């Protein structure tokens, strides 16, 4: 994803870098205007001057002055929410889910925290009592949807390609292809990523962050935006606690310092420990 959006450079800082070495990318002539005349301003202060030296620059600025006679410069005060397009679709999703009294959860985590296993175990337990459906988000492959369908639950895979998160429109389109009954639960398994999905509302009732004990207790501090945006944190793989160094109290403390209201549940999808509490929470939330 970094090669897609350029975030490999954007704001990335490696300890030991000197400030003047940073942001070198600002001077890279990416715009097609590169070969044309005139300085290409990419940032507010950083201008890129194509080869040719000051004379060419002077000509370009003279030309610019001529242009200004035919055009008048104006400033317009506005207020446009950049995420408004996504927010509008998310609201639409939320309304539709509410009409059918469906509980929709957005499961987020880093890759490999055990989201899909947790989900299959959850679905097996809910199978009898509640109608469920799953939207699976991954950059590539249909593997996860196949794993979900093997439990007998309808699932739709969304491949985001180069994208690093699901957005409201993808969920809207996927949800239309799923036959989710009244009073059902829709699980949206987001792309494994603790950064980008925090900003994109999908129309869910809650974001559920899955953190596994193999990841380190300070993840809530390292990826605070996600934990702050979530209503509940599932601490997964607790059956591994005897074999690894993981300070569970510190982890809870960090999570609560980022989000005092976060509800925390330790679970193990593999051993089944804590799963009853999670299922009860789901059932209670469904009736809420």
């Amino acid at each position: 994803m970094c090669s897609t959006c350029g975030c490999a450079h954007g704001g990335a800082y490696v300890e030991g870098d000197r400030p003047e070495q940073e942001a070198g990318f600002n001077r890279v002539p990416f715009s097609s205007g590169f070969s044309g005349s005139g300085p290409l301003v990419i940032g507010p202060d950083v201008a890129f001057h194509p080869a040719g030296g000051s004379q060419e620059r002077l000509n370009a600025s003279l030309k610019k002055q001529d242009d200004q006679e035919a055009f008048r410069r104006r400033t317009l005060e506005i207020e446009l929410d950049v995420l408004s397009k996504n927010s509008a679709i998310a609201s639409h999703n939320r309304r539709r889910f509410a009409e059918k009294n469906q509980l929709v959860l957005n499961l987020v985590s880093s890759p490999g925290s055990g989201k899909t296993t947790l989900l299959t175990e959850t679905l097996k337990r809910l199978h009898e009592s509640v109608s469920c459906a799953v939207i699976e988000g991954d950059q590539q492959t249909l593997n996860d949807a196949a794993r979900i369908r093997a439990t007998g639950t309808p699932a739709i895979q969304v491949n985001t390609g180069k994208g690093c998160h699901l957005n409201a429109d993808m969920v809207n389109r996927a949800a239309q292809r799923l036959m989710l009954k009244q009073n059902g639960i829709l699980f949206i398994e987001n792309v494994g990523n603790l950064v980008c999905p925090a900003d994109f509302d999908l129309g869910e009732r809650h974001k559920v962050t899955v953190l596994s004990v193999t990841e380190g207790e300070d993840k809530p501090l390292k990826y605070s935006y996600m934990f702050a945006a979530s209503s509940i944190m599932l601490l997964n793989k607790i059956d591994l606690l005897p074999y690894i160094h993981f300070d569970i109290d510190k982890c809870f403390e960090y999570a609560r310092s980022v989000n005092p209201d976060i509800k925390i549940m330790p679970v193990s999808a593999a051993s089944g420990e804590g799963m009853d509490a999670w299922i009860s929470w789901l059932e209670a939330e469904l009736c809420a």
Partner: protein
Amino acid sequence: MHEITLCQHMADLIETQARRHAVHRVTAVWVDIGAFSCTDEDALQFCFGLACRGTRAEGCALHLRQLEAECWCYDCQSDCALMTAHVKICSRCGGKNLRIVADDSVKITKLQFDEEVNNV
């Protein structure tokens, strides 16, 4: 990391405005970044240039303003700053009893452009 998506939305919004106001060329754009938005300024700056290619905003300047969260601590009865963006603890007294005014939005607040004089 999702800044390219945000920039594409921004480029669309700007182009819509440009059409509405008979704009020849957009010269500058001002954007406010909410305190709780997980948007990186450098990445936004970088992606914006790419997203605007081939539009009337190509090559325009992007002025970003990172907004701070406004916080009032009920425990020490004073304005305070948060310890870090998301650790909701008063940096003065360590209190957790805070009123926080901040949002996670990214908003375009101002556009500067050259409009065609003939059209006015």
